[in-house]
């Protein structure tokens, strides 16, 4: 968006120089189209969320957020993210390190598997876990015998969310590691560093912005995931409802202020994500001028609106 706005001041130039390829009218038309498109599809929905949330004033807004069921949904979402993000962070760094530093049989298979969750519909991802852990599933009888619940309980939500957000850190970190090569790691090795010393003193600091970016995306998706979680959660109010699920229920019950109040929190999260992403890109490009270090992500953070 900033790109199209930044283009505006330059329009004066076309008066003096006939070099510009487009006429003034064409330029204005293009700019108007870009702004209109972005406004309609990006800005308007986010603004609508906040307008609807504050439709009955700030009091109603905070009352809706303070509702015990809303608070439970927020708590569950935070808990899920708090478990899922560290899991995928550890896995992602390990997988990226493995793929970028070693050659082994099945390496391309592993790389493909990491991307699998993105190619599977989230609903299917949820169903996989129902088939595995549900009452009629493979492990269902075993779980029931031991009085353990996975489906329609927190473990199922965590599992489904982990699956769906699996590739985010790994892909991000892998791209940075591959772009940077491993000369520095080899240098550290000849200087006497052990594997762990190389990881913590050279590799992780080197890819830290990639890691941060991956974590932010992973967190945003973990909090916003709807499809897979919806299948495994069972929608038990105050117990297995995450924020997106809670928003849907409120909306279906015509409790618009409540729905949009909770939605506004997720929308805020997406804005924070964008800001941190920009900051990370700036931090990467500033000290080393390595433009290749943060390649554009093929997959954008999924929409967090219901």
């Amino acid at each position: 968006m900033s790109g199209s706005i930044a283009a505006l001041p330059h329009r004066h130039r076309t008066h003096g120089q006939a070099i510009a390829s487009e006429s003034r009218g064409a330029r204005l038309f293009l700019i108007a189209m870009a702004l209109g498109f972005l406004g309609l599809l990006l800005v308007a929905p986010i603004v609508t969320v906040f307008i609807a949330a504050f439709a009955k004033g700030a009091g109603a807004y905070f009352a809706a957020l303070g509702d015990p069921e809303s608070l439970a949904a927020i708590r569950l979402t935070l808990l899920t993210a708090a478990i899922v993000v560290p899991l995928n962070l550890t896995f992602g760094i390990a997988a990226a390190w493995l793929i970028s530093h070693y050659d082994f049989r099945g390496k391309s298979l592993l790389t493909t598997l990491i991307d699998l969750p993105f190619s599977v519909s989230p609903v299917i991802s949820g169903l996989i876990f129902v088939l595995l852990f549900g009452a009629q599933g493979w492990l269902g009888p075993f779980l029931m015998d031991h009085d353990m619940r996975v489906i329609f309980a927190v473990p199922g939500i965590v599992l489904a969310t982990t699956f769906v957000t699996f590739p985010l850190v790994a892909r991000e970190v892998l791209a940075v590691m591959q772009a940077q090569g491993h000369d520095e790691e080899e240098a550290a090795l000849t200087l006497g560093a052990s594997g762990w010393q190389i990881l913590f003193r050279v590799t992780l600091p080197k890819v830290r912005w990639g890691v941060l970016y991956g974590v932010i995306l992973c967190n945003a998706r973990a909090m916003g995931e709807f499809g897979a979680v919806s299948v495994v959660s069972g929608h038990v109010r105050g117990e297995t409802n995450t924020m997106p699920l809670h928003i849907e229920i409120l909306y279906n019950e015509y409790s618009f202020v409540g729905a949009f109040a909770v939605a506004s929190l997720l929308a805020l999260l997406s804005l924070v994500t964008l800001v941190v992403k920009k900051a990370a890109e700036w931090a990467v490009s500033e000290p080393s001028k390595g433009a290749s270090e943060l390649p554009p992500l093929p997959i954008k953070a999924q929409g967090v609106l219901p």
Partner: protein
Amino acid sequence: MSVAVNAVSKSFGSRDGAAAVSGVSFSAAVGEITTLLGPSGSGKSTLLRMIAGLERPDAGSIVLEGRDVTHVSPRDRSVGFVFQSYALFRHMTVFDNVAFGMRIRKRTKPEIKQKVEELLSLVQLPSFGARFPSQLSGGQRQRVALARALATEPKVLLLDEPFGALDAKVRVELREWLAGFQQQTRVTTLLVTHDQQEAFELSQHVVLLNEGKVEQAGAPHELYDHPATPFVASFLGGANVLKGTVRSGRGEASGLQVDAPAGAAEGDAFNAFVRPEDIRLVKPAEERDGVALARVDRLTRVGPSVKISLSMPDGEQVTVQMSRLEIDSIGIETGDRVLVDLRDAKVFVEDYAI
């Protein structure tokens, strides 16, 4: 001998089944600069990486100061490695880069500080400690990489194309600086390069590699004056290649008299390698043996020297290099007929095509 490489071989995967290095043996003496010289793909960098332990040889052994390190991890080999890309830690300051190896070895803070400052002034970057690598020029980064490699007091310093990424002027400056630096520190150094000028200027000992094998090893002038193989003769000095035949015990190539290759029989074909600077041109007033008439096709003045393109009587093209002074005093112009005075030629029986 500080470094000894014994019958080392290495091949990478299934790439044409060709070995990157096959059966290479050589040694490098303590306190000297030894150069691994060769065209790209000759296996010189692979050899250096095997000495550092970054690649594992398929066969053979590597001995550093009497200790067989073939199966020792790079971290325990006590080598300093300088990468072509410098491989400085981009997130650390110059000071932290140089201190890295000593911190790994748990030296005390004052000790580290003193040593880093000492090294930074040795590489003439005393006030650069707080900078990041991205704030340095290529030549400065190279010197930081050198200081970092020396900080752990390695037995051997390994330099992989250390000047490859620098522009010509900086390269020459840094080359001279490194020669002086090495004389000062006397650290045993192995240098990989494809630039023969670099090899000749810097090292006491040159190992010339081609296609994963040692072509010849020895002092630079030895290789230059007595090339053992056609490859050495053509690689060093950009030689002209003339086809010749043995006639009545003497060799004749393009109308020029040369020594016959040792052991060649009457009528054998051979190749004569003639360096551009081993030919002198004379105006045809005087008569001498081993002299033929040639035509001057082109004169190219390159600074103090002149490159002359000749057509020999049999149509063969020959390049000659003479000083501008000589050319001006003889007065040779394009189109002139000149006598070719051959000072030196290396002759080899085997068929060799460049």
